[in-house]
């Protein structure tokens, strides 16, 4: 028994151990990329302290290789990197610290310009980080400066002489302050008196100058009046004496007339001033239109209200979103195309008004019934003629839509007849399942249309569905595609479009 079992047991152990070894070998081989892929490039560093063979090489934090070898190149270090991602001539490499423990790695920027780097090429651009050692060097300079300042301070005040000088300075300052204080205290009443006197003098001067100014003005006015009177008198005297010596009496009459006219003019002026005063008084009291305009607060309130309402209206207008959509559908049985042009006015996200112009291959159907009463006996006295007229005319849809969560209900005019509709928006409204029911009296059954649209890009969507589900002879399938623009797009288009010139 042992003869059989022994080789088996040995075999099991050997196979198990070999499997374990091969598995481990495979796993740790994954960790290095040197045989699998990649190529070698090198960079010259001033200092490679902290870097070691097998240190990581990363781009954007992702390992793309490792350090293969580090060797001395003159007084610098040549670091060979094995990387497995394409690099260009403008590639940059930087030594970065992974942790405070001093573990370093190389950060690569692959570069976008220049020739692709080949095996054995050099990465020419090397960036240097501020290493803790550099910081320490900087600190050393700062400490030296601080030391020199403290040393000079020490020289000035450090010894006994300096200390004595400082004490003297402080004593002097203290004495000066106390003397100034005493002087101020002693002279305070006198100073008050002086200030009072100065105030009085300036007040008097002010009064004098004001009085003088008033008197001077009066004197000037009097002088002007005297001069004017003298001119008038002289003119009259000249008139009397020079030209009409015989008509002295008439001359006096002329003077009297002039004075009378002057008086009358003054009276008129008085009257005018009285009226002006009366008007001003009324305005002040709020009487009359202008008075109300000036004194009544209601007016300004009304104006404010109006401005506020206008603001809200403008806000509503600016909030209003306009969506313009065009869609064409190909009807498979009819082999005809149906086109829609829709303008959607959306004042709120959950509410919109839709105006749709529909070019339906079925056209616009109208009914006309003519009843003719005939008196001839040979014929049916009543002739009833019914005409169904189908014209190739646009149909119009006017709908009001309201959204509840992901379901939108629509009501209004659908293709010239009353109707209802519902849209279900899925996946952020990318997929929309819709149904309309309308034209309740056009045929035996109302016309129901069920379709789905899927928006691929921002503006482009495709549609497919079934039209007129319940009227068998009319039922048709359709596929279509459409474009949809919001007013942001339209703004962009209109502002970017060249202005027409005439």
């Amino acid at each position, binding site marked *: 028994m042992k*003869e059989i079992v*022994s*080789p088996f*047991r*040995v075999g099991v*152990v*050997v196979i*198990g*151990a*070999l499997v*374990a*070894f091969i*598995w*481990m*070998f495979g*796993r*740790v*081989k*994954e*960790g*290095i990329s040197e045989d699998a892929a990649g190529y070698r490039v090198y960079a010259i560093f001033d200092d490679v302290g902290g870097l070691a063979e*097998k240190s990581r090489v990363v781009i954007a934090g992702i390992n793309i290789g490792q350090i293969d070898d580090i060797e001395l190149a003159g007084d610098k270090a040549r670091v060979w990197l094995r990387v497995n991602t394409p690099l260009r001539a403008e590639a940059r490499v930087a030594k970065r610290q992974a*942790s405070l*423990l001093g573990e370093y790695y190389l950060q690569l920027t692959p570069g976008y310009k220049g020739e692709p780097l080949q095996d054995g090429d050099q990465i020419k651009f090397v960036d240097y980080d501020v290493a803790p050692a550099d910081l320490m060097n900087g600190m050393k300079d700062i400490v030296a400066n601080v030391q020199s300042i403290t040393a000079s301070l020490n020289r000035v005040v450090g010894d006994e002489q300096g200390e004595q000088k400082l004490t003297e300075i402080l004593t002097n300052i203290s004495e000066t302050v106390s003397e100034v204080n005493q002087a101020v205290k002693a002279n305070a009443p006198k100073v008050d008196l002086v200030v009072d006197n100065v105030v009085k003098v300036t007040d008097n001067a002010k009064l004098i100058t004001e009085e003088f100014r008033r008197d001077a003005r009066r004197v000037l006015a009097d002088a002007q009046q005297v001069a004017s009177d003298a001119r008038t008198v002289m003119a009259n005297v000249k008139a009397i004496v020079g030209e009409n010596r015989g008509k002295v009496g008439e001359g006096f009459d002329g003077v009297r007339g002039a004075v009378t006219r002057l008086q009358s003019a003054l009276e008129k002026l008085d009257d005018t001033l009285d009226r002006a005063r009366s008007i001003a008084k009324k305005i002040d009291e709020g009487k009359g239109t202008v008075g109300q305009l000036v004194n009544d607060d209601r007016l300004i309130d009304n104006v404010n209200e109006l401005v506020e309402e206008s603001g809200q209206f403008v806000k509503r207008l600016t909030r209003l979103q306009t969506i313009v959509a065009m869609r064409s559908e190909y009807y498979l049985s009819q082999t005809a195309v149906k086109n829609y042009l829709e303008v959607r006015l959306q004042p709120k996200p959950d509410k919109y008004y839709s105006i749709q112009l529909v070019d339906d291959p079925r056209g616009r159907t109208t009914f006309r019934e003519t009843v003719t009463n005939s008196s001839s006996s040979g014929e049916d006295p009543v002739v009833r003629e019914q005409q169904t007229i189908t014209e190739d005319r646009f149909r119009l849809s006017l709908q009001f839509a309201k959204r509840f969560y992901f379901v939108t209900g629509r009501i209004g005019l659908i293709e010239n007849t009353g109707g209802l509709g519902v849209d279900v928006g899925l996946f952020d409204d990318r997929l929309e399942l819709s149904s309309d029911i309308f034209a309740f009296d056009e045929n035996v059954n109302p016309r129901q249309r069920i379709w789905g649209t899927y928006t691929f890009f921002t503006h482009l969507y495709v549609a497919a569905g079934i039209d007129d589900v319940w009227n068998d002879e009319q039922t048709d399938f359709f596929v279509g595609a459409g474009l949809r623009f919001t007013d942001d797009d339209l703004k962009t288009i209109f502002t970017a479009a060249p202005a027409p010139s005439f």
Partner: protein
Amino acid sequence: MKQIIEIIEAMGQSVIDSIEGIGRVTQLCAQTLAWLFRPPYRLRLLIQAMDFVGVGSLFIVVLTGLFTGAVFALQGAVAFRLFNAESLVGSTVALSLARELSPVLTGLMVTGRAGSGIATELGTMRVTEQIDALYTMAVNPVQYLIVPRFIAGLIMVPMLCALFTLVGMGGAYFVGVVLLHIDQGIFLSKVYWYVDPKDLTSGMIKACVFGGILTLVGCYKGFYASGGARGVGLATTQSVVVSSVLILVADYFLTAMMFE
């Protein structure tokens, strides 16, 4: 004067004994190597030796490996936690196991269990004159007794070393990831990143050398045992001590050769 002569004689005798010992070891090694390639090849004996050296030591090696990895991870985590670098536990344990701990500890364990067994077995055969009997039967005892054990050591100790590494890593993973909640991805990625195939193969080569050392020492000590039961016991003890010391010394030189 007589005493001085005795002292000089004793010193000279020990020198002669040492030189003789080296000569015998060299002779035995040469004979073993020569008989490796000479028929008849005794496969049955080889399988038996592999069973004794490898399968017999499997349990103790696996157990040692498991706890070595676990303890090393535990201690490493305590130390690395001081620097917030616990993620390095896996790679540290894996590198230590692959390069040093697995071959050395496997070598020592197999020495303790199988090397001593070989010395005892051959020593007993020597003192009971069974080896002399083999000569009389025109069977070369080196070929019959030593070669299969030597080959078994060369093959089975590396196998046990590979299993030691695997189980040790399992123990480290259990302690590190399951008990100490070190991030699993980081733990494994650091292991794969820092351990090279070269580390594993160097460990295997070391284990192979240690297997040769421990079997040859066991065989030598047993083969030249003398002095009855006491001599057998002495040979066993000496084989374990000498093998262990030689394994550690050889480990230093192998490491220096492989990683410098």
